[in-house]
């Protein structure tokens, strides 16, 4: 029986697991760690270093350490938010063909999928060493609001790593699967996924083995990194005040402050105040100084209040999209490291009037769900009971899974994931309007076709511009790409009928096809996606 890997490919950390006969087994690194930093280093001494070892180069060679690649994968480098995110990194990113971001490190130029593929390859190698068998298949998780291009690029990363990505599933959905699979309960839950780089909220209905996402939304550029950066800015200001110089132009120093900020943030999750010193600060006069700080939890909460407000605002929007009152939700899952912040949990409790569920391990539950889905897709899980979320925290001792070889004890049960389309998909029509084809939050896989016609007489060429976004005006939405139909029969305007069909597959990737209704001649055309990797980098 082929073993398939479940991978949570995160912005800051990644985690991988397999569903084995003894439950979910996590892939361990060289120091038996379950969490692997999504960091790839290309040290001056040569070679490629991934994971915890790569992190060590942050202070010595900040320009050669690639982190947060997930923020740029499948993105258009000219997008304003991408430009903003670029200000927060210390390695060099340049514009490549098709407006895709390209990492330039030392003498190498690499696409973002290539960077991510190093992380995936590392996890694959660790898993193969641990299980003593080759692994070909994997399920990789992505943020629920990942776009088409980002999903395609993530699949590409898997391919480059030598993995056959059997499915991309959304992170909140994976968490819900790990939580609810085998519990056989009917309930409505909210998954609040506040990770290192992204933020997602999903509302799911669990109906036995069916997991239906009712609504999902998020903010792609909001995560623990932003909180660290906000705190690092405060430390930088403190540095200017006390040590009389501005550390911000100094990459190494800012990295040190970011690391300090992260440590302070984590400390304040368990303590009311953080006091201490950041050592080893190189002063302009050549000496080495230290910066002392003292921060209370209240001060920190005030600092990050704006970010938390944003997450709560999105949560309320998602409830409204699902057309549900907060009181209908019977459990709130906290996923992602940033949900450890007490203020986040408290604000969630205020929205839902109940304490969020903190018994699951926020760092591991997504990989666990991915592993269950991977096992299910490869056919190795035939029946399941009681794969409770608590297993993610406790031991891997008891086995809720029965393997393909054995006789199923209960009726054949495999989870059915009904995920959703992350954003409204539309095409441009006359007058610059966006004609909606597929709704946000519609279940996937989904297919819909509409018939359109020509606007001019004897028009033989039609361009179909596709976009994503909620605006009625095409120009205000994010363009996805263009489909061109040529050599159409010349007819008076309005006579030619063109059927455009949109299909979003179970990975959340859009496929567009168009055909001339009367002749029935199908003009399959490939959507040209802006920002997607093109394979060659000049």
């Amino acid at each position, binding site marked *: 029986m082929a073993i398939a890997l479940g991978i949570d490919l995160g912005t800051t950390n990644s985690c991988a697991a397999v569903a084995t006969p003894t439950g979910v087994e996590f892939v361990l690194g060289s120091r038996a760690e379950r969490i692997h930093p999504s960091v790839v280093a290309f040290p001056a001494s040569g070679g490629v270093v991934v994971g915890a070892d790569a992190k060590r180069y942050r202070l010595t060679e900040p320009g050669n350490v690639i982190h947060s690649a997930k923020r740029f994968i499948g993105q258009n480098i000219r997008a304003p938010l991408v430009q903003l995110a670029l200000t927060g990194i210390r390695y060099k990113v340049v514009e490549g063909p098709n407006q895709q971001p390209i990492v330039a490190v030392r003498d190498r130029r690499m696409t973002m999928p290539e960077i991510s593929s190093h992380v995936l390859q590392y996890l694959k190698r660790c898993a193969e060493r641990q299980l003593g068998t080759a692994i070909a298949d994997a399920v990789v998780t992505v943020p629920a609001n990942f776009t088409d291009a980002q999903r395609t690029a993530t699949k590409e990363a898997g391919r480059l790593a030598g993995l056959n990505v059997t499915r991309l599933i959304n992170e909140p959905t994976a968490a819900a699967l790990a939580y609810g699979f085998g519990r056989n309960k009917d309930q409505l839950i909210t998954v609040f996924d506040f990770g290192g780089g992204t933020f997602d909220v999903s509302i799911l209905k669990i109906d036995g083995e069916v997991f*239906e996402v009712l609504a999902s939304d998020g903010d792609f550029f909001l995560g623990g990194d932003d909180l660290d950066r906000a705190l690092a800015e405060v430390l930088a200001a403190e540095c200017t005040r006390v040590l009389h110089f501005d550390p911000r132009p100094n990459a190494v120093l800012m990295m040190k402050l970011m690391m300090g900020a992260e440590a302070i943030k984590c400390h304040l999750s368990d303590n009311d105040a953080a006091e201490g010193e950041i050592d080893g600060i190189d002063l302009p006069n050549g000496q080495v100084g230290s910066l002392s700080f003292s921060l209370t939890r209240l001060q920190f909460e005030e600092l990050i209040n704006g970010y938390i407000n944003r997450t709560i605002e999105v949560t309320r929007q998602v409830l409204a999209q699902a*057309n549900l009152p907060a009181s*209908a939700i*019977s459990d709130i899952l906290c996923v992602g490291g940033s949900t450890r912040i007490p203020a986040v949990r408290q604000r969630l409790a205020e929205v839902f009037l109940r304490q969020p569920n903190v018994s699951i391990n926020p760092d591991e539950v997504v990989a666990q769900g991915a592993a269950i889905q991977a096992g299910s897709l490869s056919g190795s899980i035939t029946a399941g009971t009681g794969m409770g979320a608590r297993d993610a925290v406790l031991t891997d001792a008891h086995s809720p899974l029965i393997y393909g070889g054995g006789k199923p004890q209960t009726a054949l049960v495999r989870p*059915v994931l009904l995920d959703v389309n992350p954003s409204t998909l539309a095409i441009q029509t006359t007058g610059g309007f966006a004609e909606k084809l597929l*709704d946000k939050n*519609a279940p996937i896989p989904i*297919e819909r076709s509409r018939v359109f016609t020509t606007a001019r007489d004897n028009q033989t060429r039609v361009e179909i511009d596709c976009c994503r976004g909620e605006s009625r005006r095409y120009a205000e939405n994010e363009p996805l790409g263009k489909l061109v139909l040529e050599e159409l029969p010349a007819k008076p305007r309005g006579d030619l009928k063109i059927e455009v069909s949109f299909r979003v597959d179970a990975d959340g990737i859009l496929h567009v096809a168009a055909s001339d209704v009367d002749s029935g001649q199908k003009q399959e055309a490939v959507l040209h996606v802006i920002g997607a990797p093109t394979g060659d980098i000049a």
Partner: protein
Amino acid sequence: MNARLDVLMWAQRINGNKKLPPHQLLAVPANADMETAQAAFHKIARMAHPDLHRNGLTAAELELVTSAYATIANAYQSCRNQAMATARMKPIDKAPGVPAPATPSGAAPIQAGPQSAMSSRALVYYRKAELCLKRGDLRGAMLQLKMAIGTDPSSTFLRAALIEVESEARKAP
């Protein structure tokens, strides 16, 4: 391989009738509410979701099933949109698809002394809610209770009261 034949026959039937109105594809009444549409869709998903047939079908057969399933997904979305539009015209507490919240065990009955169970600021809203209840204005009472909970989110007393009023409102015609 009964399941395999069943799903292929089903897919063929759906693919041949793609132009039918959404509710007929989903096999629900024309003005079906959210719960009915959802139950019908889940039933189909349990039987025909393409993921369940990845290993048993050829690529061409799987494409047939996927296409049929994707058509049904679109029909479900249409039915759901319609049900949601209908539900919006009714008051929210009577909207279909909202299961009754479970009453927490050991919740205080609404008549128990409220002074000790909440902060003084919340008590102001609670008194207003009581006045609304006397007038028979359930929705007003719910609003005031929600305001009270907003002021004092830790009070289980207030939450129990809100749940009680909400269930009253559901029973009312």
